[in-house]
């Protein structure tokens, strides 16, 4: 049976497609609102029904916006929440005092997987599930709201005075992170690669230029390697973090990371938890999108008529080129990402 999208979902898809809603944060926020609405609605009677609705809507979002992984990430979070709350209530009713709670110790996880063979029947209606879910959702919302701030707080831990930092394009997390660093540390030099063809790096540079005690240098993308020899740290944002610890980041990030590796410069990636996606992609064509080529070479120029012109949007950065992830919960090595994923999402929900 083919599920019909909710009105809210179609609205969100439209808004994202026409560019009214931009940036991972606002997309995540809007998606969360939709799922909250679903939970509040009376259309489901038991946990199983709710999970089916969430899955169906998530699939629709995924199909419509294949590049926006945050929507599925949030859906997975909701599914996990539902399972947890159901288990908790179920356990309370049956054993009354299961000491394990829902704490995510390694021991619990090991036992849980062995237990899960004895599948829980989610179709049993459970009293108070809705309220418990809404409560928990509130936590997720606050986490989302404070994620940016939580990342910024760590700026001081990573940046010392008179450091030379290189960044690429324009990421909101990087912008606030650097602003924080500029306030706390003196004589920073920030090198911004402009990230052609959109040249969003110019916006970042202009926004940072208002601060004092900082020198901002805008370079064309070609000069990244030339400048890298003087750079102390590379700080970039990312579109999403993949299951292996690799990145799907703005086009050009691969070159930046490679150049940093060549000069042994640490690469710090700012990634709030909602950007972690349980995807295993390591091929360009698997996730890339090709943008408008007009910015690369104007359509009316003579060679453009015959030549193939590509303007890809993303780059895959393999985990070995990343030194550190900074999320709202602290720093993580790329090799630790799989563990974060198991904490965030239920193993059964990885494939929606």
């Amino acid at each position: 049976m083919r599920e019909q999208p909710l009105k809210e979902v179609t609205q969100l898809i439209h808004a994202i497609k026409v560019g009214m809603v931009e940036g991972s944060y606002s997309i995540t926020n809007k998606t969360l609102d939709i799922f909250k609405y679903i939970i509040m609605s009376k259309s489901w009677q038991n946990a199983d029904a709710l999970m089916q609705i969430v899955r169906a809507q998530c699939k629709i979002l995924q199909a419509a916006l294949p590049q926006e992984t945050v929507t599925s990430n949030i859906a997975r979070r909701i599914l996990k929440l539902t399972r947890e709350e159901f288990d908790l209530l179920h356990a309370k009713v049956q054993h009354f005092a299961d000491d394990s709670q829902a704490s995510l110790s390694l021991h619990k996880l090991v036992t849980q997987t062995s237990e899960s063979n004895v599948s829980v029947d989610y179709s049993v209606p459970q009293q108070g599930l809705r309220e418990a879910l809404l409560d928990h959702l509130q936590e997720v919302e606050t986490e989302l709201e404070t994620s940016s701030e939580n990342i910024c707080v760590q700026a001081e831990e990573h940046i010392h005075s008179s450091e030379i930092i290189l960044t690429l394009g324009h990421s909101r997390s990087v912008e606030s992170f650097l602003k924080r660093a500029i306030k706390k540390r003196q004589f920073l030099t920030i090198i911004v690669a402009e990230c052609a063809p959109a040249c969003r790096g110019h916006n970042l540079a202009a926004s940072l230029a208002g601060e004092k005690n900082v020198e901002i240098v805008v370079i064309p993308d070609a000069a990244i390697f030339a400048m890298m020899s003087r750079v102390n740290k590379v700080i970039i944002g990312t579109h999403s973090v993949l299951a292996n610890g690799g990145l799907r980041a703005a086009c050009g990030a691969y070159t930046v990371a490679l150049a940093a590796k060549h000069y042994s410069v640490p690469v710090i990636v700012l990634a709030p938890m909602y950007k972690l996606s349980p995807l295993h992609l390591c091929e360009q064509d698997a996730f890339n999108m090709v943008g408008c080529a007009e910015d690369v070479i104007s359509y009316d120029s003579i060679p453009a008529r015959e030549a193939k012109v590509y303007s890809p949007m993303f780059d895959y950065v393999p985990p070995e080129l990343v030194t550190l992830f900074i999320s709202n919960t602290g720093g993580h090595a790329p090799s630790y990402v799989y563990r974060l994923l198991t904490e965030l999402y239920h193993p059964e929900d990885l494939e929606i």
Partner: protein
Amino acid sequence: MVLTSEQLLQTDAQILKTKHKKQRQRNRPRNKRNRLEDSNLTTPETSTTDSASAMPENQDAGATEKPRDQIMAEREAKKLAKQAKKQNKPSAPATPATPATKIITEVEQTTITTKLTTTTTTKAQEKANSLAPKTAPALLANGKEAETGEMSREMIKAEREVRKAAKKAGKGAGAKVEATTQQLAALKVGDKAPGTAKAALPITEEDHEKKKPVLSKAERRAVQEAQRAAKAQGQVKKGQPAGKAPSSAAPSKEAKRESVSPTKAATGSSSPSKCPASTPNGECRVKLFNHLVCAKADSQFINDPLVHPSIARLGVQYAKRTVVGSNARCIAFLHALRQVVHDFETPAKKEFGRSLDAAVKHHVDHLHKCRPLAVSVSNAYKQFKNQLTQLPSDVPETELKELLGHFIDTYIENQIGKAAQAISGFLQEKITDGDVLLTFACSSLIQFICEEAKRRQVAFRVIVVDSRPGCEGQEMLRRLHAYGIPCTYVLINAVGYVMAEATKVLLGAHALLANGYVMARTGTAQVALVANAHNVPVLVCCETHKFSERFQTDAIVYNELSDPNQLVRGDKCQLSNWKAKGKLMPLNLSYDITPPELVSAVVTEVAILPCTSVPVILRIKPDIGY
């Protein structure tokens, strides 16, 4: 507009053909004047009699006290006449391909004008007559503003120019033209291109303000230089819209009008009396690059009377980046150098070789001021100097000049032409069916190799990687497209996206340093880096005349900074008026350094070598470095 080395080579051949004719036909009077100028500089008190005896038929009664000025004025007027003729050129039947061709080498222009002088003088006169009613009011206004002395100077200039033209037009027609001289003298002033007339106007006004009865030499030179610069610029601009369409007089006029403003600015900002000392460079604001000077877009013309016009023009072309690329810059330099040698006159009681050496050094310094010399150019210059020291002493000057000219020709032919063929020969073995070559920006050598492979009917395609702000890859794309080679075009960000398809990476180079590092257009190192990560072989193509004995390990110690404003995209860009935004600085590096571990091999005309063999080549080819 970018001059390719091939085009330059073509013109080279042209020049060779016309050279000997020209020598007899045209350059003798000019040489005399040159000598006059030189002797003037050394011994000003004897020059009066000298010049008087040199050209008695051109002497005016009132002008005897300032023959130098006259000569200058004459030359200037002649230049203007050339310009005027250039404007009228499309109507002349004797110019088959000239409007279409985009090459502007000084030599070609002179050949055209010499051809044209015989055919178009009468036409020019007609044009002048027809233009008369239009230009008369302007002329009158000019006349009113100017003092009478100023006016008479203009008249003398014009008269002189007309006589010159008449003389050239042919001995038979000479008498007839002589009759109309008076009439034309008035007209010719107005006949000047509107741009130059306007350019001249502010300057004369400026001089006028000073109320000097006789202009100082420096001022005159400044005027001359400014006009020359305006001319060069006008021609550069004229070349751009030329294309296939017949270049009518209208766009060229427009171009000239445009060209006026920088000239004005140049003459306005640096007062003419102290022009040679003025420096066009500004400090770079980025702390890391304080040691490098930043090129300005509106770099002022360094007014220097001792600089040969061909070198002055080349300097402007370097500064404006109309001649770019190692090979093109080298060829253009050698052409200009040949012109300098050709027009050189040994001062009295001086040795030819040494005085020429000094003169050439001065010219090279001038070029260096316009834009730091390319390694290829400085190598060529070293070779030339080396040649100068080895000149036989018991041979007449004309033969020495021929020797040097021959040396320059063989240098271009061997070091650039034949080297390209040899490199292409090596690489043809490497390019096979189904190959995907990835290249960065624009390289004349890579283009040559691709064309050669296409001629061999190899089924291959090319990925052109490009980068802002230069976007030279578009030029490459255009050239390869003209040869029907299938191309893919991406910006350097996306190089990781296309690298998987590529089977070989071919890169051009600006220079190969003695420690095996490759100096090339910014972005080259990045392409090599990504290619290395994908295990795609990186071949750097570089002729041995670009080898340098310098050592460098990063791109920051020595580099060239281009105009930072190129990074700004239009008015809507956030970077516009970056100067007002405190500590915000765009940085536009010209070159970067690729470490040898990223390069699989260097293809030279000698062999395919690893990067680290550069010192070996430098040793077995000692004439390169020393």
